[in-house]
């Protein structure tokens, strides 16, 4: 049973999250292990498994971007693990700029943490980061908006194309995330050190 089926939903991205939450609470009330403590052990094991499946399904579907990542995995038959679905790829129109940023970051690294960046370099990097953040948000908006709508409207023949579009956009988003985190780190602004990389 896939995550859409758990909620009795078709494999579509347009989901009313308030309705999803209502349904999640309703299914939890019915199937949570807390309410079945008197059941025989085999039945309890089934209930536990079903409850774990429901929680995983809700987690994957409640957020529009996690939903897309899950859909890509599902369509490709890789229904195993959360996390990386695509190899990060630089946005083609920004290739030249990316090259410069990576170079600046390399320099900052080799200059050593003790010296730190000078004020000018800091300003340049932070301006570049803000541009990349805007681009990142733009990519997410595209994924949530037009690309998701394209998938939902696609007939069987157009699905492969819609899927490829998702993967490209996700690859760009992953790339931007890494560079933004690297700049944050170089500027000494990364929140709580290593944690930001791992946010889901």
């Amino acid at each position, binding site marked *: 049973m896939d995550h859409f089926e758990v909620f009795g939903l078709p494999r579509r991205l347009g989901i009313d999250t308030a309705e999803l939450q209502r349904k999640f*609470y309703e299914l939890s009330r019915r199937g949570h*292990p807390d309410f079945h403590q008197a059941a025989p052990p085999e039945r309890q094991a089934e209930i536990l498994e079903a409850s774990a499946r429901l*929680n995983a399904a809700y987690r994957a579907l409640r957020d529009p971007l996690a939903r897309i990542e899950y859909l890509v995995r599902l369509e490709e038959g890789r229904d195993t693990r959360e996390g990386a679905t695509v190899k990060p790829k630089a946005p083609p129109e920004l290739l030249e700029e990316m090259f410069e940023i990576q170079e600046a970051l390399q320099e900052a690294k080799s200059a050593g943490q003790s010296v730190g960046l000078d004020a000018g370099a800091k300003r340049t990097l932070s301006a570049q980061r803000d541009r990349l953040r805007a681009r990142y948000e733009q990519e997410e908006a595209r994924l949530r908006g037009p690309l998701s709508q394209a998938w939902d409207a696609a007939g069987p023949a157009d699905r492969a194309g819609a899927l490829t579009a998702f993967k490209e956009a996700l690859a760009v988003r992953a790339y931007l995330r890494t560079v933004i985190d690297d700049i944050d780190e170089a500027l000494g602004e990364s929140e709580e050190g290593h944690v930001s990389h791992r946010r889901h």
Partner: protein
Amino acid sequence: MSRIVGIDLGTTNSLVAYVDDKTGLPRVIPDRDGQVLLPSIVSFTPEGVLVGAAAKRRLVRRPESTVYSVKRLMGRGYDDVKDELGYLPFKVQPADGIVKIQIGDRDVTPPEVSAIVLKSLKERAEAHFGEPIEKAVVTVPAYFNDSQRQATKDAGRIAGLDVVRIVNEPTAASLAYGLQRIKEGLIAVYDLGGGTFDISILRVKDGILEVLATNGNTHLGGDDFDRAIVLALLADIRTKHGADLGRDLEAMQELRLAAEAAKIRLSADERTALTIPFDGFTYHRAITRAEVEALIGRLVESTLAPCRMALADAGLAAADIDEVVLVGGSTRVPLVRRRVQELFGKTPHSQLNPDEVVALGAAVQAQILAGGITDMLLLDVTPLSLGIETLGGIVSVLIPRNTTIPTSAREMFTTSVDGQHVVDMHVVQGERELAKDCRSLARFELSGIDPMPAGMPKIEVVFLIDANGILSVTATELRSGKAAAIEVKPTYGLSEADVERMVEDSFTNAEADVEARLLIETRNEADTVITHVERALAQGRRLVGDDEHAAIVAALTALKDARNTTDRDRIREATTATNQTTEHLAELMMDAALKGALASRRADEIMEK
């Protein structure tokens, strides 16, 4: 279904509660003397084991055999705790992944000590209901990892309790508040106890309490406040009296208890006085709330970063929170309240007694499990990301932190060499990228794989975190469909055989005669009075006349004689008599100490001018 009680197994105090069938409301169960809080202290004597208030009275005189704050050692390895061992008067040693406490020639593990506390609460509940109690819901800090949770479950088993559910303390508190029909909306529970700190963000709607995110520090609490005060007092004593008490275990315990008491008084008062008689001198000083706030400011500050992280993980801003609830004795500290109020921009709730609210919530969860409450449901999360170590020591996350539990993840494994029949996995918990920086949970060995070329076997491993936040692992070889054998080697914790043995020991050893135990407690009380009176006579002789002095000496001699008999009533009467005879002397000494403190303060003021 048989009765299930709720237990708050705290760093400083523990208590037991149940839901009253008639009113549907949770209630705490007091002991014979009407006390609700059982100090989480265990003292080992040649005659037997003492727990609670009786053990607390031995903190100063038997520091090396009286164990307190053991919760900080639960499920931990020696390296985790070695930095703070210098502050503990009892001896803690590494032992095969866990730590052991050495009492004379006897070793005990932290779960065994906790089991003694749990057993006392179990007996209290049994006396209350007049029937055996075998099941309990036990609370733990939300930020406890798998090993710490497992250690708590082990403690229950050793105490003869089936721990049917481990519940997170802040969420338990929200259940207690939930029952009182708190408004629906987004709730932040700030829980600062004796040794641990948790923050949990919840959404409450239609009777469902859904935890959105949790964060915390399992090594931060009121104990650390006391320690900061003690360090300042030690320095002050060195300056004023030229005495270094840092290595004197008894003196350190006196200081710790005095610091704790002063901290508590300063929650209500702006200033207070400390008077501690030591061998050779009496230390007294006035201390203000502002001074203590300066000492603990940094510690209070360090609770705010986890609050911000939890908010970020929940995708919320501080202003989105509708209600803030305070839990844990340390939230009585005014500075803590101020900081929390500033962070969330609203006055926090604390209508329910912060010492009792967690146990009350545990009782509510117990009632849910027993089928007595059907319109409330708690959906909690796992506090830490769960992952496996991959090539190069990098962690691959399988279950991210703040995932609703129960939850599971599947992962495929295969072999890298032809004919390989064993695959190893290293499971870790934490937020860092390298396995060595995370908490090692266990090593799993999948064996019995049929010989095949490299990469051919397909082993599906399922990692399941149950509603207790505890991990279990199963594996299947997909080609044959047969379950692969898994051997688990927990990095920290007791083996199944250890626990079995401890369960047996607790039945054979700890069933000490109740009468014998009561006699020890009575004798200990007498010993405490004898020590205090002897010290008072030495230091306050000139304060009383000859007649009064003679009366005190007579009472003391009678008490010493009585103490060596086995007549409990006689010892108790002699103790009471001695207390009464010395009341006047105690008052005089307190007056003198206060005058002394005031005089020295005036001298300070003159110096400043």
